[in-house]
């Protein structure tokens, strides 16, 4: 905490000094621009305070907390099964993926494990919510850079995925489907065939976006070399997910840890990019959607038979202990540190959400960029407000 304070103070002093220098040289004064809390580019209520010299950013600082909902505190007055309804709403575009690490942590404390069929279906739904999340990012990217058309393609094709999630769980946005010891229900009839056709559509969507946006010279000139995050800076700021992989770090929690999930039963690739610029981050995400469709396709072929729920007591009491489980969510590493005192509900839950750590690099990466690049960089860092503020 003190380190962060020092850094803030240092950057503030640097801003003052830069201001003084500019004032002496040109006799102009800087302008402080508040981007947000209400602003089209912040997908919610993030506020970026930027001190500008002309159109160049001297100093910028994200101000989070406009949408704080106190989920960590609220979990303390809920029972374990009730918590999933809350944490659904952290990263609201990939809701199912939020439930999984918490349920896994609770299962770890209780010493139960979901049956193989449930693990498979969990993984499929996890990847579907990743696709729903990141495909919207790919469309939104266009809007942030001024191209209006891709976002409609994204909404169109994301709808198919949401329909699948709805068919399986009953909820488009907030499934609340994961249970301690398995899943609420089995898959509906026809889900597997439908998912196969949707995955083909999603791959076509990726090709479309690639030719429409990524192949566009203007898009490339706007994103290449903009907001470069070198490997060690990315590591030291605790970035995760595609932001880290775009800086050349091959790190994916789906592959690198041994969870009771089905990722290791599919053959897929962890994409990285050496550049670390905005283009790399967007490109890595595009490839991840493709990999996700592949994972889903392979897992659909190998769903084992059996129950989707193990035997757990009707009233769940989690034994005393502490557990930490994190997974590779659409936005990056998301983890829950669950402390239980043997009650119906958790004693304390610490939520580590990806976006909060990912935007901590904003002051570093925004220094010296132009105003339009702020938007590019924020779009490519890809945060969701619920994931920052919780």
């Amino acid at each position, binding site marked *: 905490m003190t380190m962060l304070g020092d850094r803030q103070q240092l950057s503030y002093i640097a801003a003052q000094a830069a201001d003084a220098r500019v004032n002496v040289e040109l006799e102009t004064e800087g302008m402080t621009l508040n981007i947000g809390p209400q602003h089209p580019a912040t997908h919610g209520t993030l506020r970026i305070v930027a001190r500008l010299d002309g159109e160049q950013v001297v100093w910028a600082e994200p101000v989070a907390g406009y949408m704080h909902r106190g989920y960590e505190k609220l979990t303390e007055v809920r029972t374990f099964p009730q918590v999933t309804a809350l944490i659904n709403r952290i990263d609201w575009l990939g809701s199912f993926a939020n439930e999984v690490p918490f349920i896994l942590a609770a299962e770890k404390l209780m010493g139960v494990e979901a049956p193989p069929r449930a693990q498979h279906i969990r993984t499929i739904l996890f990847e579907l919510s990743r696709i729903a999340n990141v495909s919207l990012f790919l469309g939104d990217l266009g809007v*942030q850079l*001024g*191209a209006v058309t891709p976002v409609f393609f994204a909404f169109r094709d994301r709808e198919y995925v949401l329909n699948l999630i709805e068919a399986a769980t009953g909820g488009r946005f907030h499934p609340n489907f994961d249970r301690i010891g398995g899943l609420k229900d089995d898959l509906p009839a026809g889900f597997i065939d439908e998912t196969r056709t949707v995955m083909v559509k999603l791959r076509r969507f990726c090709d479309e976006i690639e030719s429409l*946006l990524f192949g566009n010279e203007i898009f490339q000139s706007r994103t290449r070399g903009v907001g470069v995050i070198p490997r060690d800076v990315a590591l030291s700021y605790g970035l995760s997910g595609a932001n880290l992989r775009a800086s050349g770090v091959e790190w994916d929690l789906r592959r690198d840890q041994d969870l009771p999930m089905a990722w290791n039963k599919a053959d897929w690739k962890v994409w990285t990019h050496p550049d670390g610029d905005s283009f790399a981050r967007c490109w890595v995400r595009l490839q991840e959607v493709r990999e996700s469709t592949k994972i889903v396709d392979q897992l659909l072929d190998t769903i084992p038979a059996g129950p989707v729920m193990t035997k757990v007591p009707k009233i769940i009491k989690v034994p005393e202990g502490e557990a930490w489980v994190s997974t590779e969510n659409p936005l990056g590493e998301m983890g829950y540190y669950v402390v239980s005192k043997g009650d119906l509900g958790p004693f304390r839950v610490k939520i580590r959400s990806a976006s909060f750590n990912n935007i901590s690099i904003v002051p570093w990466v925004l220094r010296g960029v132009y105003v*339009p690049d702020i938007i590019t960089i924020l779009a490519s860092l890809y945060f969701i407000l619920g994931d920052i503020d919780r």
Partner: protein
Amino acid sequence: MVGVELAYWAESLLRVLGGLVAVLLPAGTVVYLFLFKMMSFMQSRLGPMEAGPYGSLQLFAEVGKWLQKEDIVPTNAQPEARIFKIAPLVVLASTFLLVAVVPFGPDAWFTDFDGGIFYALAVSSVSVLGILIAGWSSANKYSLLGGLRAAGQLIAYELPMVLAVIGVVIQAGTMNLQKIVVAQNAGEIFGWDGLGNPFLLTQFVGFLIFMIAVQAELTQTPFDMPIAESELVSGYMTEYSGFRFLIFFIGEFATAGVFSMIASVLFLGGWGVPFAWFGWTAIDDVDNWMNVVGPLILFTKMIIVVFFVMWVRFSYPRFREDQLQRFAWKVLIPISLANIMVTAVLKVAF
């Protein structure tokens, strides 16, 4: 050639009404056909469908909505509220000034003078003033950034536009838009006059540069940095509401229509058909019915030109400010200078 003699007031009234039609009709058509429908079809949706058949009356509904809204002047802009309020009118005025020199037929013109294109290029930059006023008087940082960006951009792209037009002027030997139309339609390509000689063929580079500059002048994507809704909210228009926003909106699309008319006059033969089809040789031979058919031909050509402008607008991301300036000064201007040189040499040679 005109058979009717009109009193001065009647003629003036006719011109005012004609001017309104010439500005508002293209604006409405462009908004409905392209902004509402073409954009929707490109984005796999239907667009407005409820107001009128296929949503064709949507625009009237929108205008009605805007007229009902409160005319807000932000508190910080209150001391200069008058300046704040006239800004959209200045922008729209530039469009009306622009349409004054566009010829619609052999006799269907508002004014026919020899400095036509020179005048058109000059008054088209009046809109910069309005935008700058709007940006500055809004007392809003986003508006200010948007206004300054617009000023920088419009000045940078004025130059390639002028230089691209010079090629046409050299080839036609006149700055009078009416005579440029006649030069194209009475012309011939190596002795074959079936198509006239639209300058699109001989001045193709000039046409491309002109269209790029028009795109920038209209602040359409990829040159919509001044509006840039994802970063500057709505640029210089951020603080405007109600009918003042409506005027900006009409101004934007009316200017798109009028600039496309000028582009079709300069490069596509304007209102005319190749004179050889009907055995005409000069403007005095042209039959009177061309005064009715001519505007329709010009309108069709305008729609085609706007189609390309909008096609680019809906599919491209936008440039960054510095990239945009670099593109104007380092790419467009040298090419257009070379174009002038080549045109001049060929003009002397043939």
